[in-house]
């Protein structure tokens, strides 16, 4: 579907309450109204998405294990949300900008950021560990919904400069209750910025279920009030997430303005390692959603199409294992941290008072180093 043609209808119509879907849970291609007029991406694209998801899952499981071993200070897992993150992020180019939250580590991995650099912040080395400019990816943001405004501002700047750049940003279902979510949606729509908002509705904000965040039928409904198109998408269907995001990115790039895409998914793991989900949800709910696993769904489809050979499968497994080994290695290698660097990036213009404090810490360190052990 071309979002341009449908734009006027889309911005006035409420999204379907039934999630838009291209592959059902049994791995069958969906036909009819549920597709929202979008078509299934080609096998090549689907295979690529499959590969990325398998690798990302392996990464996520590995990092959760390392966190349990005490190697990381915290890790918000994306287990079960791979389709939502990878489908969306695969629809932008290396020239576009990404504004992620703490939840989107697998999206960053898909964007080509090294696991060691992604995990520096979760290990506690520095607040953000990758090259934000090289990857055109802002730091993983913690204050909820604040990054959405950065995405809108950057997109607006690009538009003023006539650069065909799109800014894609993620936020959670809980974050949609924040004032900054509202302000971001509104600024984007009023300014018609090339911004794509992905709302990852994993149905929980730590312990608080979606019903306590909104009385709207879907989070995508909110788009209508801002005068932008909104899509309520099956977030465990990577084909649908990719196709809808791709269309929204195209539309944004060609001057058609912002889009809000809600991916309905489920947070299979705890909020972070320090959370105890048994206090607020039933194991049977988790089991229910595990049976809707996004990777298995695509795998069934690819197998039924004869597109996933044993050779490809084992090659992907090998790649995933290699990445896991690399992740273990970079995490278990102690980082060399320089405490004096604490002072070096606060201001572009050096400050006397800070240089004094730096010298004081330097002297302390020198003294400590000189002390006999």
């Amino acid at each position, binding site marked *: 579907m071309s979002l341009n043609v449908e734009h006027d209808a889309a911005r006035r119509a409420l999204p379907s309450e039934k999630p838009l879907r291209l592959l059902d849970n049994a791995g069958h291609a969906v036909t009819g109204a549920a597709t929202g007029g979008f078509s299934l991406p080609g096998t090549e694209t689907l295979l690529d998405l499959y590969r990325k998801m398998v690798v990302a899952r392996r990464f996520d499981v590995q990092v959760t294990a390392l966190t349990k071993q005490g190697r990381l200070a915290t890790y918000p897992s994306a287990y079960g949300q791979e389709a939502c993150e990878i489908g969306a992020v695969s629809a932008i180019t290396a020239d576009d*900008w990404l504004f992620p939250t703490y939840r989107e580590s697998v999206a960053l991995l898909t964007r080509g950021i090294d696991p060691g650099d992604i995990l520096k912040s979760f290990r506690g080395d*520095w*607040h*953000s560990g990758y*090259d*934000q*400019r090289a990857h055109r990816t*802002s*730091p993983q943001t913690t*204050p909820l919904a*604040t990054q*959405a*405004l*950065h*995405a*809108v*501002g*950057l*997109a*607006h*700047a*690009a538009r*003023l*400069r006539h650069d065909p750049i799109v*800014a894609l940003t993620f936020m959670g279902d809980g974050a949609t209750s924040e*004032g*900054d979510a509202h*302000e*971001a949606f*509104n*600024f984007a729509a*009023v300014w018609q910025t090339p911004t794509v908002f992905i709302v990852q509705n994993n149905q929980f904000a730590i312990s608080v279920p979606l019903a306590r965040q909104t009385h709207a039928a879907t989070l995508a409904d909110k788009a209508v009030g801002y005068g932008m198109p909104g899509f309520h998408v099956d977030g465990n269907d990577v084909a649908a997430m990719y196709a809808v995001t791709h269309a929204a990115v195209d539309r944004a790039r060609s001057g058609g303005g912002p889009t809000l895409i809600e991916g309905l998914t489920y947070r299979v793991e705890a909020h972070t390692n320090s959370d105890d989900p048994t206090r607020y949800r039933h194991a049977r709910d988790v089991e229910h959603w595990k049976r809707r696993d996004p990777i298995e769904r695509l795998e069934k489809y690819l197998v039924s199409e004869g597109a996933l050979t044993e050779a490809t499968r084992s090659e992907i497994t090998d790649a995933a294992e290699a990445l896991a080994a690399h992740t273990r290695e970079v995490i278990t290698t102690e980082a060399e941290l320089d405490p004096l*660097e604490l002072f*070096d*990036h*606060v*201001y*572009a*213009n050096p*400050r*006397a*008072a800070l240089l004094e404090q730096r010298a004081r810490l330097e002297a302390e360190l020198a003294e400590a180093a000189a002390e006999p052990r």
Partner: protein
Amino acid sequence: MTATKTRSGGGAASAPTQLTMAGALNAALRDAMAEDDRVVVYGEDVGPLGGVFRVTDGLQHQFGDERIWDSPLAESGIVGTAIGMAIYGMRPVVEMQFDAFSYPAFEQIVSHVAKMRNRTKGRVSLPLVVRIPCAGDIGGVEHHSDSSESYWASTPGLTVVMPSNPADAYSMLREAIASDDPVIFMEPKSRYWAKAPLALPVTTAPMHRALVVREGSDVTLIGYGPTVRTALEAADAAVDEGLSIEVVDLRSLSPFDDETVSASVRKTSRAAVIHEAAQFGGFGAEVAARVTERNFFHLAAPVLRITGFDIPYPSPKLEEYHLPTADRVLAALASWEWDLS
């Protein structure tokens, strides 16, 4: 006062004319926008209206609405989008309509404007300016007269400045816009209409420097923004009492010019700081602590704070009782035991 000179690299200086601080700020924005097309200006009512204080008067007419425009009415949105624009290489100058209305942007300013550069190890600087009309003494109803400077000044990563006169207003705003660090640019509302003869463009001292704006030998009065005038009035009045007051205009709260302040205090051996904001946890506490830490053995008396009371800002008919006045300054100085021999 340190002599002002024509801004290097600018066009020929105009002949001096009477200019208000609002006019000087307007000229600074105009010149910055003309010089650098990365400079964009937005906020509430800054377009056709020219801002509620007319600081952006005529700019949209001159530069068009892709350089200066009215944004939706949401302060977090204004600052949050400015962050994104700055990441992309623009130099946004955004306006908060009144200081109390900057509070919706508090999270964006404190959690991101202040921290982005550090978080990214210097890869992502945010060269943006948040202009905040500040302080009272304009008969404003509630929420129109706050002094929020200490919130910003106590946040590492921010540069916080406040000019007290038209020449500094022009020069410091130009410097703030050119800075690679984000600047909270506070404009004392009660001084917007104060006039001074000025030839533009003008470059005064670098904005991180405090200035001795009146020399004296017995006391150092430290003020910023609106209280520089209060300090000068007190200095005038004190002459009759045989007291010689030196006045320091801080200009920048963060960074703090310890050198200039300490040099003055060591000369006079007595210091008092004046601000409109409440005393408790106010910026004066920082000034008093710094002055004392560095100059304790040169001080003949404790450092005094002459400030607003520790109350919410009063309604217009009662604000005169709250604001520090020259009389109150002199009364406070009289509380010291003087031995000028």
